[in-house]
């Protein structure tokens, strides 16, 4: 005789009403399996690329990653917290110069420059986050623009420390013998490691309670406040974190370029970063990477057409994106993927 509970279960099964209609299938590109697959593919491509490309292209890819890290920070501030910064190039510069000064004057081993540069940018971001507590929109844009404007003369002023207009030239991190990598490949993998860590950190931050608070502030300040979200704390911290990512990117920039000068960090950089982020896609995870491609390649391509072209092309691109794809290239890509028919 079979187990009585089993029989009961069998009877229950036969007696059960037909199952309710299955819920609509989850959008397949959101499914965990697809995401992991895509991530693995991307990781494989990222590790394979430097062995296939010529050094100059490896360098370009490295720069794309560096800008992506900076945009990750800007995206946190603009895309997720709903603030604005026209001065993010300044935080990038602070990271770059902190690393350069530490390497030049203190001869610090280069891996140690990363936490110091990130920390310095974080603190500066915290200081500039205080006005952000009270200002919004246009006023905040102007204050952050002022940071970017007064940075260049400041860097030129403290010549002993910063090398003035001449800047500082540094040795690039040498690939360790065990790795068997060329310099460009080593720099690429260093940058890749920093970028992956930054992405994971940022994604974790956004999934946490802090991320929810930032989204709430962005979407409805008043309602966020009555739910107990401290606006001043979160706005200030959003600035600080955002600056920290920019500073981290700046530090890696110094490693990779081996040279810093005030003219690399003009207001133009800040504007280009913001433009890159908007074109790449505000508030999305892939937006910063697409934006990194933009920051790396579009100014150069535009320059080839005409010296005055970058400004015009930027302006036109931003207007075009706002009309055609307000969610940026990332949003556009998402829409295209959704159009691909689903395999049953």
């Amino acid at each position: 005789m079979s187990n009585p509970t089993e029989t009961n279960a069998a009877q229950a099964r036969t007696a059960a009403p037909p199952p309710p209609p299955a819920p609509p299938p989850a959008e397949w590109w959101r499914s965990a399996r697809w995401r992991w697959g895509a991530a693995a593919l991307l990781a494989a491509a990222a590790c394979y690329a430097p062995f296939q490309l010529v050094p100059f292209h490896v360098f370009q890819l490295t720069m794309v990653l560096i800008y992506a890290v900076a945009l990750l920070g800007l995206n946190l501030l603009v895309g997720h917290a709903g603030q604005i910064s026209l001065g993010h190039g300044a935080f990038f510069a602070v990271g770059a110069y902190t690393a350069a000064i530490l390497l030049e004057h203190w001869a610090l081993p280069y891996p140690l420059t990363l936490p110091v540069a990130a920390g310095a940018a974080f603190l500066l971001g915290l200081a500039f986050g205080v006005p952000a507590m009270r200002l919004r929109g246009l006023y905040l844009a102007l204050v952050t623009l002022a940071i970017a404007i007064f940075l260049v003369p400041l860097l030129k002023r403290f010549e002993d420390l910063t090398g003035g207009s001449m800047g500082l030239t540094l040795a690039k991190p040498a690939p360790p013998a065990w790795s068997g990598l060329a310099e460009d490949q080593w720099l690429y993998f260093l940058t890749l490691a920093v970028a992956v860590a930054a992405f994971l950190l940022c994604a974790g931050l956004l999934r946490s309670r802090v991320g929810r608070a930032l989204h709430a502030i962005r979407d409805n300040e008043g309602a966020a406040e009555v739910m107990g979200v401290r606006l001043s704390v979160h706005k200030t911290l959003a600035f600080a974190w955002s600056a920290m990512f920019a500073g981290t990117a700046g530090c890696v920039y110094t490693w990779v370029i081996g040279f810093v000068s005030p003219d690399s960090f003009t207001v133009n950089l800040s504007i280009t970063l913001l433009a890159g982020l908007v074109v790449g896609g505000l508030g999305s995870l892939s937006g910063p990477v697409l934006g990194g491609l933009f920051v790396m390649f579009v100014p150069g391509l535009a320059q080839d057409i005409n010296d005055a072209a970058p400004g015009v092309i930027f302006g036109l691109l931003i207007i075009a994106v706002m009309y055609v794809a307000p969610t940026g290239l990332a949003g556009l890509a998402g829409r295209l993927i959704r159009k691909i028919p689903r395999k049953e």
Partner: protein
Amino acid sequence: MTDLVVEELTAGYGDARVLHGVSLTVGQGEICAILGPNGAGKTTLLRALSGMIRARGTVTLGGADLTGRSPDTLARQGIAHVPEGRGTFMPLTVEENLRLGAYVRRRGADVEADLDRIHTYFPVLKTRLKQAAGSLSGGEQQMLAIGRALMSRPRLLLLDEPSLGLAPLVTRELFRIVQAINAEERTTVVVVEQNAHLALGIAQQAHVLETGRIVLSGTAEEIRADEQVAQSYLGYRV
């Protein structure tokens, strides 16, 4: 036992004073209805109670002095405000909205159990968890707003015109749920409402606010029996 005590509350926007000394008390676990014409200052009163705007006077909740506190402090003290227009975070999902409601709760609080509790009051939300809150209907958004407020396990729930823009049937259902919440959780409720019938139907106490002053107070029955109120808010003469 009185829970909320408001004395001589004045508040306004910039130089314009809207509330001119409002005093009222609400008993622990009671529902208090605030009636009054448009522009009387009902929304302003709730905003002053939740700290969204600065106010003078004294406010105590369960004996604790809350006068002049910031909104996030008041949220931590147990005040949950469902604002006029619901304050939905449109791009976020329903679940994210609900979890934001538990923002003031201590780490490790049983948020999952509370989500289940909200689903028993508002089963429709459970089927919409992963959907953007902005895509909900008006009634569903109002349920979400109330559910979100409950996630903080409030001591005092402030509801600003929950019936706004909802079909009569949905409104009635919503008030039934508010009553159930009040009965089961012993949450004190202050509800501002244009639909005086429904509000008086679930409230024990009611106050009529006109141009920033309370002109009439009493039990729900007394207010319902008042000729003036009947004419102005209930649409018939007694």
